[in-house]
């Protein structure tokens, strides 16, 4: 059965540091919801409160009809949690880890093995290998298998793709989509901005606050600035030359190009930048308007958190 997650007025601080500031958010049943933000944005704190491991200072979270404080035992039964650090037993084999988690949740591994077959089939050839000897991508698949063995309604994944290479990351997201088709509600956090596009909705987080919550495409569509993609033959010095360019809201490197954000007319800006760079002696200048990516939006929100 799919469950919703309702977060109300949630606050948490450690010593003097506010980890979460007045969080309000509702996640729908069977949604694949992403929390996108760097280290220190509060993602892990939120997940630890949600999975009943720590208490909030203020506010509530409800998973379906269960309250994280009053009904913590029920929540634990219906939740699969994959913490940020690899948390399996390194000196147990792949199969032993899975058996251990099945036993903890009091489920029969044979009855439930079909539930994780999509994932476990990738690692079952290595079922007698110790978990500590697996590659990063395979460890993640084992951790996901263990989080799913008791057939949870809610899956909470804390940075499952951090430190994982681009190919394994892609595979991992394909697996998550398959899990979602079974009706599970999935909450996943990630520091990789490009993974936002793979979620139904995302929350962009920074220093304990939700800066924006929406479908990724809506965040991009509602972005109020035009992005110009600037390339020249010699990229390295061009960033400094474009910083502070009149009409530019911000200028950042994006892979092999520079994204210049502006509120002005893109055509007029393009013209001016072209002449400016040509005069400076740059060669092979190409400037083209570009649909913003989530990272453009994130950078804008970081600089102007009140907008």
């Amino acid at each position, binding site marked *: 059965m799919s469950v919703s997650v309702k977060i109300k007025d949630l606050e948490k601080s450690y010593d003097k540091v506010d980890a979460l500031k007045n969080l309000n958010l509702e996640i729908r049943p069977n949604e694949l919801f992403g929390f996108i933000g760097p280290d220190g944005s509060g993602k892990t704190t939120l997940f630890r409160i949600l999975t009943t491991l720590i208490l909030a200072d203020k506010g509530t979270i409800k998973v379906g009809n269960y309250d994280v404080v009053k009904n913590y035992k029920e929540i634990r039964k219906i939740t699969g949690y994959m913490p940020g650090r690899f948390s399996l037993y390194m000196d147990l084999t792949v199969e032993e880890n899975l058996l251990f988690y099945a036993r903890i949740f009091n489920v029969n591994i044979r009855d439930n093995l079909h539930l994780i077959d999509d994932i476990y089939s990738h690692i079952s050839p290595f079922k007698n290998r110790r978990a500590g000897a697996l*590659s990063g991508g395979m460890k993640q698949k084992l951790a996901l298998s263990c989080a799913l063995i008791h057939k949870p309604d809610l899956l909470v994944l804390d940075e499952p793709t951090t430190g994982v*290479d681009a190919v394994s990351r892609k595979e991992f997201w394909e697996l998550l989509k398959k899990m979602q088709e079974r009706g599970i509600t999935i909450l996943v956090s990630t520091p990789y901005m490009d993974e936002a596009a793979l979620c139904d909705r995302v929350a962009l987080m920074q220093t304990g606050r939700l800066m924006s919550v929406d479908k990724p495409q809506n965040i991009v569509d509602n972005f109020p600035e035009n992005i110009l993609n600037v390339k020249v033959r010699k990229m390295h010095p061009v*960033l400094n030359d474009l910083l502070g360019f009149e009409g530019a809201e911000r200028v950042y490197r994006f892979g092999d190009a520079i994204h210049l954000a502006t509120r002005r007319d893109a055509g007029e800006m393009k013209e001016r930048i072209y002449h400016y760079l040509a005069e400076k002696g740059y060669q092979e200048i190409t400037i083209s308007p570009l649909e913003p990516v989530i990272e453009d939006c994130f950078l804008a929100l970081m600089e102007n958190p009140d907008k």
Partner: protein
Amino acid sequence: MKTKETVIEVNNLVKKFGHFVANDNLTFHVNRGEILGFLGANGAGKTTAIRILTGLSKPTSGKVIVAGIDVNKNPEKVKRRIGYMSQRFSLYDDMTVRENFRFYGGVYGLTRKQIRERMRFYLKKLAMESYENMLLQNIPLGWKQKLAFSVANVHNPDIIFLDEPTGGVDPITRRQFWEMIYEVSDAGTTVFVTTHYMDEAEYCERVCIMSEGKIEAMDTPKALKEKYGAKNMNEVFIKIARNVE
């Protein structure tokens, strides 16, 4: 200054663990001041290669010259000429900024005066002068990583090794970090960097992609994109990794 002078030269490097071949006959070189991106899937052999280049592990066979020194014969001498930082281990959390500078400066044989001067220089550049007596554990990750990079440079090394230095760092700080990389590279320090952010692969002058212990490709990002008919380095990476499977 960037020059064509070779500062890392690897010839037929092989490293075996039992029957497992972690580095399978690697041959490559890196120039002074060059920024080399060292990419590969998890388990491709990157860490093994870095451990050999930094004198922490001995090759099974092959020749490795770093900063003009044969690593196999004189690993301790190599360590003085290189800097190292990673996401997992950089500075000591329970020491202050100043104590970290003093510790690492001391390890690299700098005098107290030199350490003080270098620390002032970096803290000023990072606009972190007021942080001198703060414990590292109270400093946000992004700033910590910029400090760690400065500390790894404290002895003006010939080469700096950066192992996933920007993992989990916010998008603004990640870009500031790369500006620091360009700066030391312009000054003649060779930068050897690993990352899982494929946009950062585009920032490198050359990229080396490892897979299953071998070097599958090594060239400029532009040349690699042309060769593999790819829009960006992410596509190049996925094509290479998938081909091998």
